[in-house]
């Protein structure tokens, strides 16, 4: 007898990825492209110097609407939702009472009383249940729009010039972390100037059924300019160079928002929210550990996710994410280390296949685009 593996979920672009000979992997239950034939390094460099196109339709979308919507989102997230203008986006999180992470997310303010919450694919069901669980005390509707929604991300310095011919919406006036509604290639989209790569770019939310037509139109428009389809492999190296958190790595239900270096999304003075008491208490005492960036000193020492940070043969911390950096040409990583060691220029050791490899703590983000 054999038990069949559970069927992987597919985005509306699954067939398009396979037609382009993408290498597909199981990503949190989704059948996703990790790379296309160009490879991770070429895709990474395309995003840094030209543009790359990502399928991020696996992300979850939850719409909260009604007279109590603002109060609910304020209660569920630590950032100051009331300060968001209509048409503005911010990065924030769902926290547990103890200040650790349910997930991280983007909040889009669609109207005075309407918000779109964009959450991680692998946490989508948990997040929707979390919002529903807290919603009854508030006068608003909560709808999971994930199955009906496609999302593609055009990222890189040529994004504006590639996308502009496909839409009547003027793109230049859309500020970073702002959005508008318009049409791309004749299909309705939410056009958001956001991303997870550290480059300029747009995330386009559309009806699931329109995703492939938009993808095809953007690819055709960008191909003469060097646009490449880009997979999850380079998405990870791109976000790592910019020290953007990934759930299950830098943040999870055992790490609180302040030690993750995300104090900037925690507005303790905004009024009550879930996790506030714990973070107030955490702020009152010195943090025992801190997230730092490091480079290994030898070319052969390439740290990887979840390796131990060691001192005198004992584990004192752990690597959250690490990889050879295509842009910086260094073996980079992020790690939680005791606060007393978390100083730029300080030395730590990473245990790589049984060997203690020397690493130096260096400033983050490792990469920042020149505007």
């Amino acid at each position: 007898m054999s038990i069949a593996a559970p069927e992987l979920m597919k985005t509306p672009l699954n067939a398009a990825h396979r037609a382009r000979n993408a290498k597909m992997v199981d990503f949190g239950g989704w059948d996703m492209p990790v790379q296309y034939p160009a490879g991770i390094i070429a895709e990474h460099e395309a995003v840094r110097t030209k543009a790359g196109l990502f399928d991020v339709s696996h992300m979850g979308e939850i719409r909260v609407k009604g007279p109590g919507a603002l109060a609910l989102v304020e209660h569920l997230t630590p950032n100051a939702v009331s300060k968001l203008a209509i048409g503005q986006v911010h990065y924030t999180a769902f926290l547990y009472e103890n200040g650790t992470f349910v997930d991280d997310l983007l909040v889009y303010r669609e109207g005075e009383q309407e918000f779109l919450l964009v959450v991680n694919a692998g946490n989508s069901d948990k997040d929707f249940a979390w919002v529903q669980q807290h919603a009854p005390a508030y006068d608003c509707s909560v709808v999971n729009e994930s199955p009906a929604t496609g999302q593609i991300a055009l990222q890189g310095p040529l994004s504006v010039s590639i996308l502009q011919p496909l839409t009547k919406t003027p793109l230049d006036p859309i500020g970073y972390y702002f959005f508008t509604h318009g049409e791309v290639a004749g299909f309705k989209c939410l056009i958001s100037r956001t991303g997870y790569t550290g480059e300029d770019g747009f995330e386009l939310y559309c009806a699931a059924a329109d995703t492939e037509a938009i993808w095809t139109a953007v690819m055709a428009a960008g191909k003469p300019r060097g646009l490449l389809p880009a997979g999850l492999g380079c998405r990870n190296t791109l976000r790592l160079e910019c020290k953007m958190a990934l759930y299950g790595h830098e943040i999870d239900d055992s790490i609180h928002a302040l030690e993750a270096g995300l104090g900037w999304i925690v507005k303790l003075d905004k009024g009550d929210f879930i996790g506030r008491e714990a973070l107030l208490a955490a702020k009152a005492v010195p943090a025992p550990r801190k997230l730092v960036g490091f480079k290994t000193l030898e070319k052969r020492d390439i740290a990887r996710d979840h390796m131990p940070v060691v001192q005198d043969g004992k584990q004192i911390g752990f690597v959250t994410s690490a990889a050879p950096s295509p842009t910086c040409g260094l073996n980079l990583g992020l790690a939680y280390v005791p606060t007393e060691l978390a100083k730029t220029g300080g030395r730590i050791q990473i245990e790589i296949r049984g060997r203690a490899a020397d690493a130096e703590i260096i400033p983050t983000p490792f990469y920042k685009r020149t505007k």
Partner: protein
Amino acid sequence: MFPADLKYTKDHEWLKPAGDGTALVGITQYAQDALGDVVFVDLPEAGDAFTQGDEFGTVESVKTVSELNMPSAGEVLEVNAALADHPEAVNEDPYGKGWMVKIKLTGPLADLLDAKAYEALVSSESH
């Protein structure tokens, strides 16, 4: 994709006997494709001796790392020094410029697959 004059392991290394008691060793087309962009190859030193199946190095790609295992008992005569500056040769030419070590065979060639058997193994793994 799998040259007939090579011998293969189930772990995706190849061995090319030169006929004079020496052989070249590398990884297969299938292995380099699974790894993706190779960025570093950690190799032993000339004179190091291994028995069949021993780990003799590692190959690192952007996304992962894989052990290299000896297809046969042997003593390292030479390593491919060009890989230090051009690890991408493993992706571009896995059976040629991407070779990893040259060994003196110190045991019989046993339990290796011919091209046909290796191809069958690979097609069963990728489906």
